[in-house]
């Protein structure tokens, strides 16, 4: 009874909520992991205990900061690793799924910055809309990646060298810029310290979006509308096939230069 009233009064009080949740996780995990005399999967209990202890330790500020940074590192690794897996996977279906994983990593990095709304928008638009549409289109031709055009790349060595040089040059550029005396002097380094985990800045986003960028939002809406109209127009006028690959018949009677 006491616990429930405390819970109801302080739902927004994050540390207490985390404390209660961590205790519940630890106790439940220990209870599940202790031997009962019956065979069952006990690893679930160990995972729960680990989660509860991690949540407890996250309440210590320095450890919590370390956990947050390691979470950010994990998200970065997920994003970049999935990107590498995407461009190297010969099966286009798996390439699309790896792209979804890279988007999830990016959304996690956005979430770390306190951009919840934007992170959810990225997930919904990229994975929910774009990726699912293109998964359907992938089924049109060779989803298993057995055809030659999926097995063989254009100039793999040259493309890799170009990408690596681009990454290296960009990195060196901003590193050298940061190393100069007043490199990024616009930052409020001396102001109040920004905490490692930003809770939310969605209200700021809304103010910025509709107070300062209202015209731009309208323009974006018009661009979206025109994009939809353009897609409909393109679909409504299909191209004539140049050569029918299946029956090997030349489409008849194209106007020739001699006839005109």
């Amino acid at each position: 009874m006491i616990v429930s009233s405390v819970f109801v009064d302080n739902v927004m009080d994050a540390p207490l909520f985390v404390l209660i949740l961590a205790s519940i996780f630890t106790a439940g995990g220990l209870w599940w992991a202790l031997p009962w005399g019956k065979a069952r999967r006990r690893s679930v209990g160990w995972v729960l205990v680990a989660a509860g202890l991690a949540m407890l330790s996250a309440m210590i500020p320095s450890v919590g900061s370390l956990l947050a940074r390691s979470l950010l590192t994990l998200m970065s690794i997920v994003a970049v690793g999935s990107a590498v897996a995407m461009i190297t996977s010969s099966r286009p279906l798996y390439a699309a799924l790896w792209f979804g994983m890279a988007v999830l990593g990016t959304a996690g990095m956005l979430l770390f910055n306190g951009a919840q709304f934007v992170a959810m928008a990225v997930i919904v638009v990229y994975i929910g809309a774009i990726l699912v549409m293109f998964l359907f289109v992938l089924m049109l031709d060779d989803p298993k990646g057995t055809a030659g055009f999926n097995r063989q790349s254009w100039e793999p060595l040259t493309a890799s060298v170009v990408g690596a040089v681009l990454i290296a040059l960009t990195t060196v550029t901003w590193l050298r810029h940061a190393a100069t005396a007043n490199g990024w002097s616009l930052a409020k380094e001396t102001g109040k310290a920004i905490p490692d985990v930003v809770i939310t800045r969605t209200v700021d986003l809304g103010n910025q979006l509709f107070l300062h960028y209202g015209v731009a939002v309208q323009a974006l809406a018009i661009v979206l509308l025109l994009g939809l109209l353009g897609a409909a127009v393109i679909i409504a006028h299909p191209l004539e096939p140049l050569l029918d690959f299946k029956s090997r018949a030349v489409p008849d009677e194209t106007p020739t230069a001699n006839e005109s």
Partner: protein
Amino acid sequence: MENTGLLMNYLLVGTCLFGLGVVGFLARRNLIVMFLSVELMLQGVIVNFAGWDRYHGQATGQVFVLFIVGVTAAEAAVALALILTLVRAREGLDVLRLQKVREDIILPPVPDEGEVREAETPSWPRLPRVGRRPDIPQEVLEYRPSV
């Protein structure tokens, strides 16, 4: 200094995503994978915006991320329509079959008024098609000497 380290993490990830997208766009031959590589480059830009946004403590970067997402949605609609049309006409997602998107025969330009028309091409008689249609093997049909 802490903030600068955090910003560098974001900048590095953004740069890597952009470069990997470039590699995918240059190297892959599947239309859809090429399109997804472009999206990967946009993801790199998004990460970049997010890092600077937090570094300056404003929300302007998030606004631009939202604009990128919106423009991407429009771009995806148009790209989907284009890819569907091309796949219908060329029977496949191989970008090699799109090397020649223009029409085969380009009509001669219409002469200006008063321009002297010299040496008109004679009108040859059209011959009817006779004989058996040659059976061209698939390798010959798909052979491109430039690849």
